[in-house]
């Protein structure tokens, strides 16, 4: 029997029971959709994190409290036992002065900001006058705080774009007074939209955040390394500087590259893990295919006998039934991919989700393999049927 005719016969056989065929495909559709959509969403998170880091520039080094590691068994920033303070900024300034262009402490704390009757919970970010340059903050209105304002612990702040939208939807906020913990602060600038991780921030001198709001420990120290400096060498020098006061376990020095590769490796493991879990539904889909194909073989016993009487060989019968199950897997895979593509388009409204080519190959390949593996036994049982017994089958 010709390949085109086998294909045509299989399409006809499947179309005779459209609903049953669709329900059989459903397991594969859901399986492929789950695998590809999950991978694309994880990829979206990866893109989001990479974008955020890239927007900061590639030559940043963070000093964080505690032993921080993204590897298995590693720790998180230890804010409970945080020993970082202004002394360590000074140590870096003194002993690693040749490697950096900018340095700033960073203090982050969530606080509710009030303007008349409106309130907004923002991430208060304290730093030095150099912070806006290090973090690439682009001003929309006004100005950033000066060294004099940092030194004098001035109660001034710069609003992120989301905070500005919420508190001052129509009004120019420059010069207006807002309240944090009942203390009045003057708005001296607003930032341009920058990204979901930064737009809800309010920038304030680190000295002010300590004196006025009682937050006395740094969340970290950010150092922008000179363009021609080697990042590994810079990390080593910063570490040696801080080690003059703290023990190795008290802090961690990480470059942007270190953080990105660690985060990406975690996301890759997550991606493979989620895809494997979703793959179980493909396996279940395969069992569905086998079940329905066995029913189909029984239902079409007389047809098998007739085809053999009219000249079909066992191989012809095997290929025909196998083609039907592969077609179910193939179509299920294709529909699953289309759904995953639509899902990714929808998810793209929130994160830069994308479907990696390997997940398409994986999902589609698996769906076809499922069709082959789970269709082989029914096809073999069909091909082995005795033509006389089959023709007599009631």
């Amino acid at each position, binding site marked *: *029997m*010709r390949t*085109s*005719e086998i294909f045509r*016969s299989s399409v*006809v056989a499947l179309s*005779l029971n459209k609903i049953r065929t669709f329900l059989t495909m459903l397991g594969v559709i859901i399986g492929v959709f789950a695998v590809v959509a999950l991978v694309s969403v994880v990829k979206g998170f990866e893109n989001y994190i990479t974008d955020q880091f890239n927007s900061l520039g590639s030559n940043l080094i963070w000093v964080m409290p505690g032993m921080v590691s993204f590897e298995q068994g590693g720790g998180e920033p230890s804010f409970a036992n945080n020993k970082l303070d202004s002394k360590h900024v000074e140590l870096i300034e003194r002993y690693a002065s040749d490697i950096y262009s900018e340095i700033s402490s960073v203090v982050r704390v969530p606080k509710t900001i009030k303007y008349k009757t409106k309130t907004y919970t923002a991430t208060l970010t304290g730093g030095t006058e150099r912070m806006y340059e290090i973090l690439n903050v682009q001003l929309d209105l006004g100005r950033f705080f000066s060294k004099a304002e940092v030194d004098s612990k001035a109660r001034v702040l710069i609003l992120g774009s989301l905070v500005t939208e919420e508190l001052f939807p129509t009004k120019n906020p420059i010069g207006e007074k807002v309240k944090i913990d009942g203390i009045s602060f003057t708005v001296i600038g607003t930032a341009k939209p920058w990204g979901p991780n930064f737009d809800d921030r309010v920038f304030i001198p680190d000295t002010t955040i300590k004196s006025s709001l009682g937050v006395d420990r740094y969340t970290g120290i950010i150092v922008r390394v000179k363009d021609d400096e080697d990042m590994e060498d810079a990390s080593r020098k910063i570490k040696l500087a801080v080690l003059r006061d703290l023990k190795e376990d008290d802090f961690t020095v990480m470059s942007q590259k270190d953080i990105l590769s660690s985060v990406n490796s975690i996301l890759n493991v997550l991606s493979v893990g989620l895809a494997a879990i979703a793959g179980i539904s493909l396996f279940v889909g395969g069992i569905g295919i086998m079940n329905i194909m066995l029913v189909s073989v029984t239902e079409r016993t*007389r*047809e098998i*006998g*007739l*085809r*053999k*009487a*009219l*000249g*079909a*060989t*066992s*191989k*012809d019968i095997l290929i025909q039934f196998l083609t039907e199950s592969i077609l179910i897997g193939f179509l299920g895979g294709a529909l699953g991919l289309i759904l995953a593509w639509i899902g990714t388009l929808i998810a793209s409204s929130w994160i830069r989700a994308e479907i990696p080519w390997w997940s398409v190959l994986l999902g589609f390949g698996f769906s076809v393999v499922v069709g082959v593996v789970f269709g082989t036994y029914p096809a073999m049982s069909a091909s082995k049927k005795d*033509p*006389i017994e089959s*023709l007599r089958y009631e």
Partner: protein
Amino acid sequence: MASLMKVINVSKIYDLGSEVITALNNVNIEIYKGEFISIIGKSGSGKSTLMHILGLLDTPTSGEIILNGQNTKGMKEKELAKIRNKEIGFVFQSFNLLQRTTTLDNVMLPLKYSDIPSYMWRKKGLDMLKMMGLENRLHNKSNELSGGQKQRVAIARALINDPSIILADEPTGNLDSKTGDEIIELFSDLHKQGRTVVIVTHNEEIADLAQRKIIIKDGEVIEQ
């Protein structure tokens, strides 16, 4: 007349473990080209087993089948399938048409397993259905046809590869007497056109219409 098929010392024995059943015992038949033969016998006499062996759907326990001078003994499944496709046309009591498939597709089915190029299938199918008077039923599904029409489609299907022999197993068994007579007349016409027709039946009247009658009893040919 030239010999078409020789059945030489054919026996078929089923060993069921607890008992051994001899369905055919040392059967010898010769069928000539252009003959119209009826094989008659009571239920369980072995006539269906004989037809399956004549149609190469079953292999004898002992003995040989010679078709067009070619001994089929020891042939592989692929060779037997090719002979069934090319040389033998089957007509069954229960028509055995593919469900919810058009008349034309049913008739073309044997062509799909043949060497005939696909561009000729439709024309051959149309010609056959026209010959059976079913040219206005081309696209009807098998479940939309009457019993007589179904059997005509089955006969068209049996004839489409221009086989050497037509084997019909109780072809009127599922038809009313009037339609049954029409079908037997159709077989008679095919015989007149020079085709070799073998009908298996338990109906004496139908058997008497054939040119030669082979009577089978308890697995043995008692008259031919």
